[in-house]
């Protein structure tokens, strides 16, 4: 039997169950729920603070998200931001041992539709990223904070997010790629 860490892919059910159990661990040992997108607020606030800190302090949203109760700021590099940084490392370890690490600028599915231009792909990725986090902050969570953590807590907010996200995601995918058979990605 192959060492599981050497496998390029695991069953989505095994991975999903693993993430579910990871949620038990964060609730039980850390009194936390998995989430990632709040860290984008902390990171952008800190970056902006290096040039215009007063502006950050006076902004209602940065104050609400990053501010401490007694005034001043909570630590920006907190539990979740540590999590976000090591997520990249965890993925690297998985990819390295599974031999799926690959420097890729233009995904094959994108290339099959929009060509090999790196500039074009990066432009779409950048704009997509802007829209993604704007939406996540408005909704107060993303696929992990709402989708997984909120979903498993049966939160009304999170299931509302989930339905809305899938609806416009499907529409956007239809606009970008149209109907018809797509490249199979199940085995890579």
């Amino acid at each position: 039997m192959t060492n599981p860490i050497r496998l390029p892919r695991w069953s989505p059910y095994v991975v999903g169950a693993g993430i579910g159990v990871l949620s038990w661990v964060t609730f039980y040992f850390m009194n936390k729920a998995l989430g990632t997108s709040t860290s984008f607020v902390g990171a952008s606030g800190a970056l902006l603070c290096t040039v215009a800190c007063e502006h950050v302090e006076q902004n209602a949203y940065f104050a609400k998200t990053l501010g401490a109760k007694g005034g001043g700021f909570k630590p920006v590099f907190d539990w979740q931001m540590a999590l976000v940084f090591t997520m990249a490392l965890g993925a690297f370890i998985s990819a390295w041992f599974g031999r799926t690490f690959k420097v890729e600028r233009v995904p094959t599915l994108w290339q099959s539709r929009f060509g090999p231009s790196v500039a074009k792909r990066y432009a779409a990725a950048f704009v997509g990223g802007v829209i993604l986090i704007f939406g996540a902050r408005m909704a107060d969570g993303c696929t992990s904070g709402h989708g997984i953590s909120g979903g498993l807590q049966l939160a009304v907010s999170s299931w509302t997010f989930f339905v809305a996200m899938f609806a416009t995601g499907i529409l956007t995918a239809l606009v970008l790629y149209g109907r018809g058979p797509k490249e199979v990605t199940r085995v890579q």
Partner: protein
Amino acid sequence: MFSNFFADPKTLALGAVTGLVFGFLLQKGGVTRYNVIVNQFLFCDFTVLKTMLTAIVVGAIGVYAMLALGMIEGLHVKTAALMMNALGGAIFGVGMVLLGYCPGTAVAAAGQGSRDALVGIAGGLVGAVAYAEAYPWIGKHIEPIANYGKITFPGVAHVTPWVFIVPLAVGAAALFFWLERREHTAPRPA
């Protein structure tokens, strides 16, 4: 902001271990790949839905069992400001397909070598600032619409959470069974 930039070492260590496992699992699951995520929204690959639904069902069983046994301090439910959740979710869906990753999987994808995900993260930082700038208006005009506080379905219905968890688990299992049968009998797209 920079006078107390870092949380205490224990908090950071716990976050770091969690992130390591989370990123590892997402990459092994294949949901850090652009093709897998976009193909979910095209109904050509159900990996994302299988992973998320399994995580939700397994997570719900454990978290609500621990809550019933008094093992955890409480839940971390986000406020149901439904116009914000729906509108934000709708905007998020567009961004997720255009970028091809969500915030967490973009970070994990960066770790597997996907350079476009890094560009998406840079965009995300700009998006966070854009939202902060727009917040004074949004908070005043959109946030109060259909705002019910931190509510859950079992809380609203005044029933035990298992009324929702059991059908969710059974429904997910039935969906998975159907998907697997379909994937193993139907010819794969060329």
